């Protein structure tokens, strides 16, 4: 979030929570992949394991919402909201283009798991552009 450049209490909390969530994500991804590979699971247990890695990712989106709720600096809140909109727009555009390509051609479309990555990349780029724009009016170097 405006998070690399500015360290408000809310942004520090967001970074800490996200780091824990992503650490959990890595553990869950490797754990479920290992479990599926080494045990022949079927039925609801397999479905449960398949959904498990998505939970930390979904939770990371919830954390963005909590950050927006907790951030007291209104400009940083606006900046983060803009970036979320850019990420969402990139994701929706990808989905629409992908759906039409798949409907009219033989192409297989965007590979699995690309959606969230596209959101994150677009979100990150929007944050970066805004951070650079913030520096344009600086009178003194960033602390």
């Amino acid at each position, binding site marked *: 979030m405006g998070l690399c450049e*500015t360290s408000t209490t809310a942004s520090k909390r967001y970074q800490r929570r996200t780091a824990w969530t992503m650490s959990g994500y890595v553990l869950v991804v490797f754990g479920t992949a290992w479990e599926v590979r080494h045990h022949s699971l079927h039925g609801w247990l397999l479905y449960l394991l398949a959904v498990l890695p998505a939970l930390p990712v979904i939770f990371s989106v919830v954390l963005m919402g909590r950050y927006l709720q907790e951030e007291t600096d209104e*400009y940083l809140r606006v900046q983060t909201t803009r970036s979320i909109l850019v990420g969402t727009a990139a994701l929706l555009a990808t989905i629409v283009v992908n759906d039409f390509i798949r409907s009219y051609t033989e192409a297989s479309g965007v590979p699995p798991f690309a959606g969230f990555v596209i959101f994150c990349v677009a979100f990150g780029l929007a944050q970066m552009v805004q951070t650079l724009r*913030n520096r344009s*009016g600086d009178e003194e170097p960033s602390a």
Partner: protein
Amino acid sequence: MKNHLRKLRAERGWSQQDLAAKLEVSRQSVNAIETGRYDPSLPLAFRIARLFEMTIEGVFEDAA
């Protein structure tokens, strides 16, 4: 919306960081308001005006 924040701040010898600390916002906020990239909310505009002991109209100019 145009404003006189940079001038008012300079008159008092405050850095962007000083003003940000007094307003309890980030330095980026001060920078964005000064450069006209962001129009503050009414509560923040009141806080700014109060800090400089001026009216909101004295700090911000209505573009219309």
